[in-house]
């Protein structure tokens, strides 16, 4: 596994900018693709980037961005959380059930979502870290359990927007200076998480664990606690996303978020967070989420036949991870050549 952990110390010659560029290539290539896509769509249909268009784009992507940030923290430790989609669905329904017909505040709803999410995350995390069982199996199991609980509880019933208090709905529709709350919230979570991973010792240790668990253990990193924390965080984010989902849409059915886990994992993978752990940044994952959402919106705006949309998304997904991989291989061999000199 290659890691970006050991960044070379900055030197004064031109090498620095090259190395810097090279190490950021993943995020740059995804960002470039995103810009191209947006520009292309905008040229084809100027309505894509009017006020409402931008607002829609931001709103549509913010929940996925949140989930991708939470997921990448787990993936960086060489684990995976497949239960995020169902946890989001369950918390959305639970929050809706909790506020239906009452005048509870948005704050309590968010708190409830966070709490439920943390509990789910802690269960998965404890099984993975203390039970020492493969993350994919555990979180697949959790996916079924949470989904089953959600469906059994909802049982064909749905939460309707008319019963959701205005204070909660305002969280999903309100804005500051024309920017809706949702993307602002996602941006805050993104920046905070990115800063934490990059700057704090415990954040760097997550990379160490994903890069080489055995070496991390020998270096004295409390692996189990860190992995547990990563899952708790991912769960909290999923729960938070559930509360926001309720605020944004008001209407919640049991299977609203079925299948999301794979979309979230796609966003993370497209964003250059290696599924094998130890590499990547939350910025990349957020860009990946933004890219996936933008592809969806662009295809609608460009009036692509709806039957074609999923196939095109699939091709672009494959193209993104393939390009990313080729760039990575090229830069690795370039760096090797450079260090040989």
């Amino acid at each position, binding site marked *: 596994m290659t890691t970006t952990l050991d960044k070379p110390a900055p030197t004064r010659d031109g090498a620095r900018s090259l190395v810097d560029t090279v190490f950021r290539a993943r995020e740059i290539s995804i960002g470039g693709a995103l810009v191209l896509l947006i520009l292309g769509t905008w040229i084809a249909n100027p309505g894509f980037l009017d006020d409402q268009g931008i607002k829609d784009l931001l709103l549509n992507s913010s929940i996925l961005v949140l989930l991708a940030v939470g997921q990448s923290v787990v993936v960086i430790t060489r684990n995976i959380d497949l239960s995020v989609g169902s946890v989001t669905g369950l918390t959305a329904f639970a929050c809706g059930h909790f506020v239906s017909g009452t005048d509870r505040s948005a704050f309590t709803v968010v708190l409830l979502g966070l709490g439920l999410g943390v509990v789910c995350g802690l269960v998965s995390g404890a*099984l993975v870290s203390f*039970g*020492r*069982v*493969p993350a*994919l*199996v*555990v979180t*697949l*199991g*959790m*996916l*079924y*359990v*949470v*989904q*089953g*609980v959600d*469906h*059994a509880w909802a*049982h064909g019933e749905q939460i309707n927007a008319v019963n959701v208090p205005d204070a909660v709905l305002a969280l999903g529709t309100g804005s500051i200076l024309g920017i809706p709350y949702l993307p602002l919230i996602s941006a805050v979570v993104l920046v905070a998480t990115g800063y934490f991973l990059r700057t704090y010792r415990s954040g760097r240790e997550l990379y160490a664990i994903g890069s080489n668990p055995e070496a991390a253990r020998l270096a004295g990193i409390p692996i189990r606690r860190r992995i547990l924390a990563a899952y708790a965080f991912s769960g909290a984010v999923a729960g938070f996303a559930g509360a926001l989902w309720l605020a944004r849409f008001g209407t919640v059915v049991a299977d609203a978020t*079925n*299948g999301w886990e*794979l979309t979230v*994992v*796609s966003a993370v*993978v497209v964003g250059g967070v*290696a*599924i*094998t752990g130890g590499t990547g940044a939350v910025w990349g994952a957020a860009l990946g989420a933004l890219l996936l959402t933008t592809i969806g919106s662009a295809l609608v705006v460009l009036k692509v036949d709806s*039957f*074609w*949309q*999923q*196939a*095109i*998304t*699939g*091709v672009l*997904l*494959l193209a993104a*991870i*393939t390009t990313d*991989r*080729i760039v990575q*291989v090229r830069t690795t061999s370039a760096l090797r050549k450079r260090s040989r000199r």
Partner: protein
Amino acid sequence: MTAFTKYVRWDTVVTVLLVAVFLAGAGTTGGFADTSNLSAALDDTAEIALIALPMTLLVVAGQVDLSVASMLGLSSALAGALWDAGWAFELIVPVCLLVGAAGGLLNGWLVTRIGLPSLAVTIGTLTLYRGLASVVLGDKAVADFPDAYAQWAAYTRTVPGTFVPYPVALFVVLAVITAVVLHCTGFGRSLFAIGAQEDAAYFAGVRVKRIKIALFAVSGLVASFAGIVYTLRYGSARADNGIGLELVVIASVLLGGVDFDGGKGTLGGAVAGVLLIGLLGNLLTLNDVSNEVQVIVTGLLLIASVLTPRVISAVSERRHLPDQI
């Protein structure tokens, strides 16, 4: 690993569980052990069982194929579209199988030549193949398949003298072949080698890339065949047939004790896992347990299946500790 795993293998435990579920069902639920019900229960798991065979090989080799359910849907949609266009059914089947193999080859090519992790690749092709299915058939449903073929997949038509429906009989044959290949041949050993340590396997002379490509191709081929079975069984070709089935297949295989990290597992265990989930689902349905609760039971079983051996071995380790010191 430890005392527990030294004497009792997980696939044995799953098999015992399977027998226990069967006996409990036969004892408590009228009609469960009837041959007609067993035929129906087995037929219901036919696609999952078929796809689980190559999936076991893939997981043993440290890979995974999440695109199988989408390939099932694509094959079903293609069969429907071609039947609609007036093709002969005898021609449709090989075309669908070819498409399946080609889809599998694409997975294998991306994994081996580009060097991408199979989880990432097959998430991409999961979306692509499902998308192609809706391109091929849109939101139509094609239903009027020839009776002779639809009968072939129905649980009411069984191999004479037994209660085994034809797709299941075919599965049994394929399972025996796969078991022999996995456990009795050099090829099978090389799969375990790749799963345990890919680099070591490569230096030991295993043609890692070629084998991986072949595995993905077979996986695609079998998934497309399962798509035909699915179409005939439900008498309906749709682009969204079998959505989400990939997770059930993987859950069954993992439940059977095949290690997701590769290098460990038995085909018998995987088959027992498939049958356990299938029979349990049937038993719960007969007892009017809702589908939601069945989903929860599957999840708990899956978690228990990975947790139990570890808990038991941890306990027995602790108990044996004084002797060792």
